[in-house]
């Protein structure tokens, strides 16, 4: 193509810009911010004569990241697919109860308890997915509706913590290797699995495609409905894993363990903080884990500094908006001029 020659210079420029852009993806920014936060936090905590990243500190950060991390991994998948899940918080509570009640203190029931909890979670995810794809309800409303239904079920059937987890199973929640909790490792393993799934497998590719442009995906032969349903099932299963983990940690199931922690909005915040586009199609689990670690680190630093819990909320809100504003600026700067408006 002869005409390409006259474009040779701009293409060159574009290439250098691309390199810069690749270097500073939101994921990279998140981890740079995490490192900066750790440094600043260490200094601030150090000024009080304490150490942020001692064994206890690391343990704290990782423990706090575990449950939110698991939920956020699932949430990443649905958000990447262009959807959203507001039902995870109640689902975490529900699955913790199912696991703990099935186990009822018996060692032999651990596996059935876990499997049943995951099965129920998958079922809820399936409902979410089907309501969105078949009934064509907006994801926000669909999952809000399912959340309300779950809430009704929980309120109607439970009056507080119930069920009992055998001691053997509690090791999942309490064991650690050095300063690293086993559960955090499992969470990271789940993240790795999700990363592999999203960036290496066909269904993962299709999630990006559906989130990027559902029409394009459909015309290209991507089974869009199946992809959305799968994303929701996986998200709910991740919430189910969170419920199981919390059951092991709490020793029983607790109906409001998910909502008290605000896992619905907080997981969305973590995902977006991690650089995933709320509209879908761009981002990934690696960034999400970074986002979760930032939130967990902030929490730990604030605890060490004994900051008023209300102040924490203020900072969380500001951090969230600032981060997303930063990503938005980068996107505009990088966007090729094309469309009129």
């Amino acid at each position, binding site marked *: 193509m002869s005409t390409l020659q006259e474009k040779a210079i701009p293409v060159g420029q574009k290439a250098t810009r691309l390199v810069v852009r690749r270097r500073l993806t939101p994921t990279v920014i998140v981890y740079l911010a995490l490192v900066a936060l750790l440094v600043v936090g260490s200094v601030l905590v150090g000024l009080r004569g304490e150490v942020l990243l001692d064994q206890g500190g690391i343990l704290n950060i990782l423990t706090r990241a575990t449950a939110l991390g698991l939920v956020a991994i699932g949430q990443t998948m649905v958000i990447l697919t262009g959807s959203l899940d507001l039902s995870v918080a109640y689902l975490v509570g529900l699955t913790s109860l199912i696991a703990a009640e099935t186990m009822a203190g018996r060692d032999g029931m651990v596996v059935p308890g876990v499997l049943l909890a995951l099965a129920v979670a998958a079922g809820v995810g399936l409902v979410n997915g089907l*309501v969105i794809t078949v*009934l*064509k*309800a*907006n994801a*926000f*409303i*669909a999952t*809000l*509706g*399912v*959340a*309300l*239904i*779950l*809430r*009704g*079920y929980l*309120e*109607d059937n439970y009056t507080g913590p119930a069920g009992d987890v055998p001691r053997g199973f509690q090791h999942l929640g309490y064991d650690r290797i050095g300063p690293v909790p086993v559960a955090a490792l499992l969470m990271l393993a789940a993240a790795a699995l999700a990363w592999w799934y999203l960036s290496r497998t066909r269904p993962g590719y299709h999630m990006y495609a559906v989130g990027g442009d559902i029409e394009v995906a459909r015309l290209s032969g991507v089974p869009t409905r199946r992809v959305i349903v799968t994303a929701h099932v996986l998200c709910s299963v991740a919430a189910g894993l969170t419920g199981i983990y919390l059951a092991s940690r709490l020793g029983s199931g607790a109906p409001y363990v998910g909502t008290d922690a605000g896992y619905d*909005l907080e997981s*969305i*915040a973590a995902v*977006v903080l991690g650089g995933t586009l*709320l*509209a879908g199609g761009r981002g990934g689990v690696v960034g999400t884990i970074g986002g979760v670690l930032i939130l967990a680190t902030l929490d730990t630093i604030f605890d060490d500094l004994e900051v*008023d819990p*209300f*102040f*924490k*909320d*203020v*900072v*969380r*809100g*500001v951090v*969230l*908006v600032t981060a*997303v*504003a930063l990503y*938005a*600026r980068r*996107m*505009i700067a990088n966007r090729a001029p094309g*469309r*009129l*408006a």
Partner: protein
Amino acid sequence: MTWRPRLAEGTAPVLVVLLLLLIGLAVAGPAYDEPSGYLALLKRAAPLMILAIGQYFVIVSGGFDLSVGALVTAGVVIAARLINGSESATARVILLVLAFGLLVGLVNGLITTKLLVPSFIVTLGMLLVLDGAIFLWTGGAPRGALSAGFRTFGRGAVDVPALGEVPWSVLILLGILLAAALFMRGGTGRALVAVGDNEAAVRLSGGQVDRLRLLAFVLSGLLAAVAAILLGGFAGVSAQVGDGLEFRAITAVVLGGVLLGGGRGSVVAAAAGALSLEALFTLLNLLGVSGALESAVQGVIIIAAVAYASLGNGVRQRLRWWPQQRDSARPAQPAAS
């Protein structure tokens, strides 16, 4: 083309639902034999309806406002602390609360339009900031007290000729609803809907997209402040007065057939959605449905409403559209080859 009364797209179902609920109320509760029962319902529903009207502006222009619940709490807590029982401070503080709502809306809108952060995230952040900041300021729990004058708007009633005692909140609601309906019929209102539909088209038609969206957030903030005044007036100081109201308002708007993502729906329907929601709660209460199942019923209903809107609508539209296309086509002529 003759003008005829016309319901905006998606309005009819919510009116049917509302009618059914009101009939249900009349059957289930003796209190709803007379107008005063419905007036009481309207009074109760007024804050949510006003919130829904505010939320409508944001949703129809393509956004979300998750901060209204926190803003209601903030409004009540601020008013209580500043008034501190003093009657003379009332008027000043009411203006201040309204200004605060306006300011929060302005910040939401500016961050959304200038920094291009999705409104979902902006208002989620604002929710966190407000929740934290307000209690940081008051040291954890509400302080001070509301004056009787402040509470009149949510609590009191006024004699209206021919109607008798009408609660202030109902009058305020009707005023706002009327203003909102007129606003939406006017140019700016229509342009706001068009922004939710196609921002670029409005911009290239010379519209000020950012200013319109900003306006939507400001209106939402302002109306949340009004709702705070009514709720604070109705029920007094409470630290959790606004809990969950954002989701309830969004639910109401969606129930009213307004499209999430913007571009379609009427403000009257959004308010009707809120009234339906409140009527539903009252009906469930009258029927003795346990509080626990209430949320489950609510969940089923909003899913059904949205599914009906998107599924039912598609079918109806196509039925309507295709024959029309045929009419407009030229009469077929034999091919001359």
